[in-house]
């Protein structure tokens, strides 16, 4: 075989290499730019509207004026109901999977498979399910508690997954150490495993809060549209995300106020998600420092 024509070959890679680099850089820039673009548009319209009066005031004229006070309270109450169900449910499920059944056993595979499938269910379907199950079968109607419980079902997979991986990341010898001292499994779980896995669980809860805050479709048929100050968990209450939807779809000239609400929601989610990142990095660092 003759010597390959080296110069002819060498040109192609360097051109392709540069092309790859250029296209890639452009694509990467797009994702950087996109976030800035969205925030810029929202801030341009919405930022002038935001004031203390806006954050605490009542909704007026279908949202064209006034504030979002009752909506923030409703959103908070929906979150409280959601976490009240999902924390025990998700932590309990993850504890059972990691401490009481063997990995790969049929029971474990069925439960994790069910949780994974749950994660794939579209949020509008959760809305329908919440409407008929919590709203009609359990007679909660359109209420904050119904919306919160629906969201709990939706973010359950996040919590199960993060808690499970936190428990599985614990040093394996904590279990024989507890057993060797004659501790009951309950003591080992409550006093040793859960405290050690707490950082991971908190990060999971924070991620779940971020997801719940941003959800709209699951809430329109469960917690409803009421814009009054909620007086109890049985009242209907409009979440902030539902307010944005309503302003954008049903209210003419609503986009200025919708921008303001979107900006507030975005800021809340930004804080929650950054908290999750900061917490997990902080705990990761501390772990590296001490182990």
């Amino acid at each position: 075989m003759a010597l390959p024509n080296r110069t002819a070959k060498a040109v192609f890679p360097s051109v392709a290499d540069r092309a790859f680099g250029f296209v890639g850089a452009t694509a990467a820039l797009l994702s950087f730019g996109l976030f800035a673009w969205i925030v810029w548009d929202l801030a341009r319209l919405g930022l002038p509207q935001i004031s203390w009066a806006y954050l605490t005031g009542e909704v007026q004229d279908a949202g064209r004026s006034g504030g979002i006070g009752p909506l923030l309270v409703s959103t908070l109450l929906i979150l409280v109901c959601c976490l009240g169900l999902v924390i025990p449910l998700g932590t309990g499920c993850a504890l059972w999977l990691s401490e009481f059944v063997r990995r790969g056993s049929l029971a474990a595979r069925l439960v994790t498979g069910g949780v994974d499938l749950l994660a794939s269910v579209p949020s509008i379907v959760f809305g329908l399910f919440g409407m008929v199950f919590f709203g009609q079968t359990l007679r909660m109607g359109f209420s904050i508690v119904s919306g919160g419980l629906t969201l709990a079902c939706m973010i359950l997979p996040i919590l199960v997954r993060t808690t499970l991986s936190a428990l599985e990341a614990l040093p394996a010898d904590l279990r024989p150490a507890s057993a060797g001292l004659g501790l009951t499994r309950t003591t080992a779980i409550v006093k040793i495993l859960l405290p050690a896995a707490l950082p991971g669980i908190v990060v999971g809860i924070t991620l779940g809060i971020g997801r719940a805050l941003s959800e709209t479709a699951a809430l329109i048929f469960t917690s409803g549209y009421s814009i009054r100050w909620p007086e109890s968990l049985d009242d209907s209450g409009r979440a902030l995300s539902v307010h944005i939807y309503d302003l954008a779809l049903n209210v003419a000239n609503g986009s200025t106020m919708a921008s303001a609400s979107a900006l507030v929601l975005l800021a809340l989610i930004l804080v929650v998600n950054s908290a999750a990142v900061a917490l997990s990095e902080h705990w990761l660092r501390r772990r590296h420092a001490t182990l």
Partner: protein
Amino acid sequence: MNSPGISKQNESEAPPGGGGTTRSKVCLSVSSLSVHYRDFTAVSDISLDMPAGEITALVGPSGCGKSSFLHSLNRLTDLVPGCRVTGSIRLSDGTEVTHPKTDVLALRRRIGIVFQRPNPFPQSIRRNFDIPLKEHGWRKRDIADRMESALREVGLWNEVSDRLHKSAIALSGGQQQRLCIARALALEPETILFDEPCSALDPIASGVVEDLIHSLRGKLTVVIVTHNLAQARRIADRAAVFWVREGVGTMVEQGPCERVFTAPSDPDAALYLSGARG
């Protein structure tokens, strides 16, 4: 600090300074014990008496079932799915360890264990004692005393008394291992099992822990698995040599430490102890 009153047992209190020369009371009596994992037999047909107050060393090459045997003594083998133990382990008060009705938690209080890798709970030093002591019913006001005397016993008190609220994970490897020994001692066990307690430590820390184990002689019964033959010879009163025969771990030699090391009757054990094999 007397023996705990969890059982009526007490008559087997170790003879002070009881040495390997006099035949003392037996604390743990094992007969025809086998440990199986599903269809694999780790160790088969062991019969061995461990005298009270003495140090019994189990030696042998890797994979000969020493650790499986050790873990069966306080039923830690229960934690391994598919693990089955047959035969008998009798305590001095007549308790049968392998019996399914035996109270496993109380048993593990009486027979403590220290593992190869130090495994303090990732919490404060104080909590490392609080949790097990509370679990086993010590009253609140006694717990601090128990912790202090256990920490003094392992020589750690002066090093940590001013930072009991700090994380146990921040201690050095040797300190962590001594903490784990103190944590086991705090429960006032009759026996402590050591599963290669020095092999994860540096030579200096290893020496400290070895001296510490030696100092327990006469106070309680010690069973130690070690790969370090010199160490076994230095601290043990009695020794048992494990070996793999036809794929199954078994015991080929046992007796007073000096006799086992100087005049082993089994040819494999002789070669192993002389350093020629294993």
